[in-house]
């Protein structure tokens, strides 16, 4: 009597697992190799993710999540200060912003170049004027001496630590800012240093001054601002909010364009690209290494069982059935090795984070503690690397073995 089910059992997991356990030393070696590759990927990806996140946060602190300005400001095609936004444009844009669920707050900003002088020293700077106490972009948390700007301040300035060191400034010092007004006339104003801020970038500390927006408009002789800074509730919502706001602004024909924090920071984009290349290289190197070692191990392991494979084919297992059986065996290896690798990666990362190695990145003044992120998100990539490398390496020997002629396989001693 024939069997009453025509469909072949597609994938039994117990036979492959037992096959794996028949040569424990070899299986343990394979799992160790896969785990090593996965752990290396996990460690580097965790480090890259943590660093990227830190730089993201720094960039958002510097630029806000979004900035809204006239197109000719972004394209650098303005003649003089023609890009400045009128009060009507600002009001209309703020109306759009207030209607968006992801926008937490916004503030107007006006930037302009200037020359700062203290004693016999001077330096070209970029002056950023903002509304003191605004909730979208502030440097209060970065003040290391003196205090932050307040609403009552007029001719007050916040200077970077590096600039303060160069010019010998302390809270209470007075500097002179020379600038060109919107109409093109020279102007100069004394500013009292109320506070000194630090930042992760030495360049920012050297080149940036913060003054109250109302005082900047006074010395520039304009009621305008050049952009709106927007803070969002979630950095992940940046692109979707940008798209939404752009549509809403276009509908009002305000001639404004929204840019995201990463569009505004070439440094971040370059670094992010470098991180991608770095992890891509590590993942590729790991995959290739694991691929070739496991390929050799599995080829040998499968070859040793040629007669057994011939037997199960003779008993009626199809080529596809043999292929799935061998693939399931390597899937066990892949899963066990990858999970062990993630576990090992977590242990190494915990130990690394515990040691707290410090490093001062180029262009910064303060050391940062090197940290490896440990999260489910970090584990996904390395798991995929371990699984893919192992499964790919098993394809060739599994196909070869499944295509053996039964009679030839049975002859092998």
């Amino acid at each position, binding site marked *: 009597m024939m*069997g009453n*089910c*025509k469909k*072949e059992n597609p994938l039994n997991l117990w036979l492959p697992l037992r096959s794996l356990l028949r040569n424990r030393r070899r299986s343990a070696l394979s799992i160790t190799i896969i785990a090593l590759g996965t752990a290396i990927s996990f460690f580097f990806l965790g480090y890259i993710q943590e660093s990227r996140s830190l730089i993201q946060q720094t960039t958002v602190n510097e630029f806000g999540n979004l900035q809204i300005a006239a197109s000719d400001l972004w394209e650098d095609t303005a003649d003089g200060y023609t890009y400045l936004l009128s009060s009507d444009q600002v009001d209309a844009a703020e109306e759009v912003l207030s209607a968006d669920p992801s926008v937490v707050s916004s503030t107007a900003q006006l930037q302009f170049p200037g020359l700062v002088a203290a004693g016999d020293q001077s330096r070209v700077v970029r002056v950023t004027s903002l509304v003191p106490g605004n909730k979208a972009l502030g440097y209060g948390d970065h003040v290391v001496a003196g205090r932050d700007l307040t609403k009552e301040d007029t001719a007050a300035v916040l200077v970077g630590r590096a600039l303060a060191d160069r010019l010998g400034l302390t809270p209470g010092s007075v500097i002179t800012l020379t600038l060109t007004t919107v109409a093109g006339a020279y102007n100069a104003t004394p500013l009292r240093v109320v506070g000194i801020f630090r930042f992760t970038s030495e360049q920012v500390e050297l080149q940036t001054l913060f003054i109250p927006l109302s005082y900047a408009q006074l010395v520039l002789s304009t009621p305008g601002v050049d952009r709106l800074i927007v803070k969002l509730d979630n950095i992940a919502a940046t692109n979707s909010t940008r798209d939404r706001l752009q549509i809403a602004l276009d509908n009002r024909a305000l001639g404004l364009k929204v840019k995201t924090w990463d569009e505004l920071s070439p440094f971040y984009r370059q670094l992010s690209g470098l991180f991608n290349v770095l992890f891509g290289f590590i993942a590729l190197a790991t995959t290739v290494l694991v691929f070739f070692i496991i390929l050799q191990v599995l080829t040998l392991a499968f070859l040793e069982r040629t*007669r057994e494979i011939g037997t199960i084919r003779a008993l*009626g297992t199809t*080529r*596809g059935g043999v292929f799935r059986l061998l693939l399931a065996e390597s899937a066990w290896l892949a899963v066990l090795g990858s999970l062990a690798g993630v576990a090992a990666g977590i242990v190494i990362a915990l130990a690394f984070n515990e040691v707290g190695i410090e490093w001062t990145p180029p262009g910064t003044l303060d050391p940062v503690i090197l940290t490896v992120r440990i999260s489910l998100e970090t584990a996904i990539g390395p798991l995929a690397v371990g699984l893919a490398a192992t499964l790919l390496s098993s394809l060739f020997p599994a196909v070869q073995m499944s295509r053996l002629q039964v009679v030839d396989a049975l002859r092998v001693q």
Partner: protein
Amino acid sequence: MRSERAFCHEQGPVFLKTSELTKTYRFGGEEIYALREVDFAADQGDFVVINGPSGSGKTTFLNLISAIDRPTTGNVWIQGVATGSQTEKALAELRRTKIGLVFQSFNLIPVLSAAENVEYPLLIQHTPKPERRKRVAEILGEVGLTDLARRRPSELSGGQRQRVAVARSLIAQPKMVLADEPTANLDSETGKQVMELMRKLNEEHCVVFIVVTHDSAVAAYARRRIRILDGQLQEGEPIESMASTS
């Protein structure tokens, strides 16, 4: 002592037929005939013993009729279906459902227990687990291995392993069992037990048994004896009465 009529009582129509079955191999540009234009037929319930010297083509013949090898020319019909025109997948289905194989060196899967080895053909047929378990228990009882069901092949004697192999060949209730030197690795007493088992199963289940052997003692169990010499079959006389007299 065996019963007077020691074979299946319900001999049926032709189950297996070969026509001008030829298998050649090429060695150094020369064509060697392993099997030459063999015509053969076996009815349902037949018990055929094939013997002959080494290299005579016995195993080649068995490989061809069990659909694990393809002939150079000629054809094999199993229940009227020509195997030569079948795909690999169809041949696997044929082996899975109609043919049981017993190998000279048992060919048990070392990582599986005796019961699991026997269960394997049912597993690849997708037979439900309760039925699998029931049938495995029954057949292990028939071959006298109930107590050793959980042992791995390495923990069994040669005779016990061959009995597992016989049980495996029968578990899917095939129409035909092909055995290649089933007693070659066994002592005479164990070999006798295995052959008795085959005879009993032939008698009770009306399964076609085709046994290739060197062992003259095995021939005593045959309904038909066939000799292969230089790749050609030489049919002996029907010997239905021989088994009852041995």
